[in-house]
């Protein structure tokens, strides 16, 4: 790795902590960003050819803070900071000073920063984009690419989003426990959304959007390191790792969805699966169930089956029932019905989803599942009607292609089964 390689990695991995601290000092996103940019420029001038500072984040916080104080020509009331030159050598004042400045608060700093990005008034995609820019440090170009929009359009969106959170007035004092829990819940939801934005992409988009999954996992790791005893955070990270482990097997060469039952399980990433299961183990020890843990447990059961036929559907159906109890939704009911169809047959499953018809009559997946259950029951004509409806509602060509395959099968019967990916 050349100098710029490690410097870039060091800057990016330090960004959440540095931005979090700069936000605390300046209470202003623009100023904090500017200060961070200044600090990065200084690092790019100073670091090449040297060994990295022992604590790059501390170095950047101090340099950025000085630069911004300079910018606003504001007299610091704090003790004078050492000049930038004094910071460039390791083992100097940097270490103790930065620790005094920072260590006590930085986890709340990072949480606050993420929470500001996840402001509830912003639409979900803007929350994600802002977090990617401010916390993860992706460039506007990279974010635009991940959202399949032009760079100028993304720049505009980010500017608007920043303007809105500028008035967010998230308090800067250390949060109490309930407030901390509230922030964590909001932030984890957005991280999972970010993951799903990347995960649900298909076709050529899947490759382009994969960084969303990587970033979500990175943020999940970061948060869990800051809040190591939170079982739902363990569950979220486990869930993302277990799902991401299947990435290589989920799409075929043409970008079409490969169903779980047809995936080459040899392509699953074992080390991600092992890590996900280890995290789930840790979470379960706390004996407080939650939706991420349950979903992770379901994903773990799938990943533990050597062949599709070995899948423990009984356990999966129970877990979906538990999930529905704490987080009822038509989508959970649908997934539960699929598991139930494996255990108790398509009749039972169909009875479970029929009451949903009114609620989600515009949902592709509902008609896909319904069609498949009817198909299994030999009610061909009704199945065809459901599949036709599913095609009309499909969001992506891959979804439509998948349903067409079912229709073909109705015309040319062969042993069939159905599973969602």
């Amino acid at each position, binding site marked *: 790795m050349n100098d710029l390689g490690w410097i870039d*990695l060091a800057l990016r991995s330090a960004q959440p902590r540095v931005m979090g601290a700069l936000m605390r000092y300046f209470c202003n996103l623009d100023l904090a960003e500017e200060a961070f940019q200044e600090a990065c420029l200084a690092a790019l001038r100073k670091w090449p050819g040297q060994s990295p500072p022992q604590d790059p984040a501390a170095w950047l916080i101090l340099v950025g803070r000085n630069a911004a104080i300079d910018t606003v020509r504001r007299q610091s009331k704090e003790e004078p900071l050492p000049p930038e030159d004094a910071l460039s050598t390791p083992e100097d004042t940097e270490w103790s000073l930065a620790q005094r400045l920072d260590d006590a608060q930085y986890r709340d700093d990072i949480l606050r920063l993420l929470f500001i990005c996840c402001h509830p008034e912003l639409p979900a995609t803007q929350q994600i984009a802002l977090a990617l820019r401010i916390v993860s440090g992706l460039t506007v170009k990279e974010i635009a690419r991940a959202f399949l929009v032009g760079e100028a359009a993304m720049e505009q969106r980010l500017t608007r989003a920043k303007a809105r959170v500028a008035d967010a007035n998230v308090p800067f004092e250390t949060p109490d426990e309930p407030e901390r829990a509230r922030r964590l819940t909001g932030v984890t939801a957005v991280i999972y959304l970010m993951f799903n934005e990347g995960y649900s992409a298909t076709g050529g988009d899947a490759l382009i959007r994969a960084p969303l999954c990587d970033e979500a996992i990175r943020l999940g790791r970061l948060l869990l390191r800051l809040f190591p005893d939170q079982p739902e955070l363990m569950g979220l990270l486990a869930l993302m790792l277990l799902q991401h482990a299947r990435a290589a097997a989920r799409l075929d060469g043409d970008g079409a969805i490969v169903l779980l039952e047809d995936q080459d399980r040899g392509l699953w990433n074992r080390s991600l699966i092992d890590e996900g299961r280890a995290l789930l183990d840790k979470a379960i020890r706390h004996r407080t169930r939650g939706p991420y843990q349950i979903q992770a447990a379901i994903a773990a059961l799938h990943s533990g089956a050597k062949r599709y036929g070995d899948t423990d559907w009984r356990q999966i159906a129970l877990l979906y029932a538990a999930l529905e109890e704490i987080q009822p939704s038509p989508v959970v009911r649908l997934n539960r019905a699929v598991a139930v169809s494996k255990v108790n047959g398509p009749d039972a499953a169909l009875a479970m989803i029929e009451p949903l018809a009114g609620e989600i009559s515009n949902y592709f997946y509902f008609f896909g599942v319904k069609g498949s259950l009817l198909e299994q029951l030999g009610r061909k004509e009704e199945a065809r009607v459901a599949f036709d409806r599913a095609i009309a509602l499909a969001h992506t060509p891959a979804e439509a292609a998948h349903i067409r395959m079912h229709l073909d099968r109705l015309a040319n019967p062969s042993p069939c089964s159905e599973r969602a990916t």
Partner: protein
Amino acid sequence: MLYAVLCYNNEDITGSWTKEEDDMVMARLATVTDRLDKAGKLGPVARLMPTTAATTLRKGGYGKRLEPGPEPPVVTDGPFAETKEQLLGFYVIECSGLEEALEIVRQLGQANPGGAYEIRPVSLFFPGGKVA
């Protein structure tokens, strides 16, 4: 003398390596460890999962005659030490002394720069059976 070489680095950074970068570093390390292995100097090697997967058991205090005291052990999530760099793996190597251990560790450091290695003489060693 047997030495344990404990590998410390910033897991934020090593965790951000692309697969290509990771493979590249692992390949370079393999040339060093292959050499050590041929020379009969390499014991068990482990790369550890991220510290988020760690759990720590803090043991209870001492009672009489160094037996366990009244407080039970406490299990906490996360690694034992919160540090800027994390314990990410270890080697066990056979060396004539600290000089040779340092020489070997320098080679590992050439293959995988950044972070630190802690070199600890091993006082008790069980090679163990096959576990993986």
